[in-house]
């Protein structure tokens, strides 16, 4: 391990961290704009041209707000909660391949922080850790509504993780590897996994909505029943962290969906482009394509939020246990049979 390697990774981590924070920042703005446009409104347009400085204004507002820690709250956990939510949201980006390797001189720089061979398991673990921030926050607030919300979040995540894991198993049958890098490389050009696993993608996407606590599965923070949900007692930047973590989660799960099912940085005609643009610009174009896919997914998240009403709790459980899990198992069986038949003949 030479010093250049450390510097290279450090720069990459910093860039990815900055980009994910920036995207989360502008997701809050985009959310409000998309909501407005879907409802024939204008959205925020006062801070800067088209309201482009709105996230900054919101950030300043969050910092300036009075910070309240309830006297009956468990102080340490109350403070740890938002930080944990942010941390678990951010570390998911480590294994996502952002682009094919860049070649500068004789040095090959992969645009991925680390290519561990169980990348999917890592993502899966980080996503399930995400609920800890919510649970700790809800528990430490010492508020009935927060606690109820934390319980909801936990049971919802557990229920949907099963279906999510099962849908990934079907994907693994097709790809035969757990490394995200290899999965992306296999989808070269237009051989995207969505073509082989449409049902698996559907299940994965529904579960991703549930895991990120987005509408229509935003039961942990439904205002009509639970005031603010797990962040009822939070104020100032701690609340900001929770809201922010949700958007980072959204970004990460969009990236994972694009990686697993929509070919990551692959796009039709990429060989030709790579040949004509050279070893630095070419991979960066791939990265750009990847981000376009991610933004499309983020837009879809928002689009769905302003379309579908929230599920009732029993409907949520019904869909998870009686709908998605049997469907995912059926998907595994069908995929297995098809693969066996193809290998036989």
């Amino acid at each position, binding site marked *: 391990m030479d010093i250049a390697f450390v510097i290279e990774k450090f720069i990459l981590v910093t860039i990815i961290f900055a980009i994910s924070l920036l995207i989360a920042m502008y997701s809050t703005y985009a959310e409000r704009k998309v909501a*407005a*446009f*879907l*409802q*024939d*409104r*204008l959205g925020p*347009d006062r801070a800067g041209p088209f309201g482009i400085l709105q996230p900054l204004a919101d950030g300043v507002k969050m910092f300036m707000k009075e910070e309240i820690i309830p006297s009956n709250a468990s102080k340490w956990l109350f403070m740890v909660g938002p930080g944990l939510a942010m941390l678990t949201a951010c570390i998911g980006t480590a294994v996502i391949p952002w682009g094919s390797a860049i070649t500068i001189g004789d040095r090959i720089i992969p645009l991925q922080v680390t290519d561990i061979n169980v990348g999917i398991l890592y993502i899966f673990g980080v996503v399930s850790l995400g609920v800890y921030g919510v649970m700790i926050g809800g528990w430490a607030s010492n508020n009935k509504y927060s606690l109820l919300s934390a319980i909801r979040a936990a049971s919802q995540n557990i229920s949907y993780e099963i279906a999510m894991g099962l849908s990934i198993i079907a994907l693994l049958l097709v790809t035969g590897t757990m490394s995200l890098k290899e999965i992306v490389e296999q989808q070269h050009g237009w051989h995207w996994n969505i073509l082989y696993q449409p049902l698996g993608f559907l299940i994965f996407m529904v579960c991703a909505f549930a895991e990120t606590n987005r509408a229509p599965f935003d039961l942990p923070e439904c205002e009509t029943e639970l005031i603010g949900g797990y962040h009822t007692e939070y104020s100032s930047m701690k609340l900001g962290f929770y809201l922010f973590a949700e958007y980072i989660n959204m970004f990460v799960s969009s990236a994972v969906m694009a990686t697993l099912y929509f070919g990551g940085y692959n796009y039709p005609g990429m060989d030709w482009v790579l040949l004509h643009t050279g070893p630095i610009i070419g991979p960066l174009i791939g990265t750009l394509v990847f981000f376009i896919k991610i933004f499309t997914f983020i837009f879809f998240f928002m*689009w*769905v939020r*302003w*379309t*579908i009403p929230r599920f009732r709790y029993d409907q949520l459980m019904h*869909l998870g246990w009686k709908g998605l899990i049997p469907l995912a198992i059926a998907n595994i069986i069908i995929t297995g049979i098809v693969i066996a038949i193809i290998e036989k003949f």
Partner: protein
Amino acid sequence: MEPLTSKKKVLAQKPLSFAERMYLPAILKGLTVTISHLFKKEATIRYPEQEREFSTNFRGMHSLKRDESGRERCTACGLCALSCPAEAITMIAAERKPEEKDLYREEKYASVYEINMLRCIFCGLCEEACPKEAIYLDGPIVPADYLRKDFIYGKDKLVEQPLNNKL
């Protein structure tokens, strides 16, 4: 029980069909509805910069009118204050001095004329009551402010601008 009208209709909740239980067709339908609104013209108006077109009989802020030669029409008869159902108008009358002949049309004028915009209900009875055609509710929307005292509009805000700067 015998139905009271012939319009009685028994509603039974049908069990959902398979397509309905899948949610997906309904969700797709909903998504097309919402995305179609992305391309519709927004109903919002950027208010301070842009104003909605008012109807011709819109009643906004009051203005105290001047006559053709730029003299204030109000003679402080008090009929507007009397007719005001919200009791928003107060005035103090004064006698016109000979040198003020080109300022006030009548021999008596309102030295103080105040309308409390928080009380005013913009009913327009004052302009109906006025015998001198001195008050009309033809102004814009009364702007927001921070303090209650700032909503009491005096003559400085109510009286029309002079025709030419004779004052």
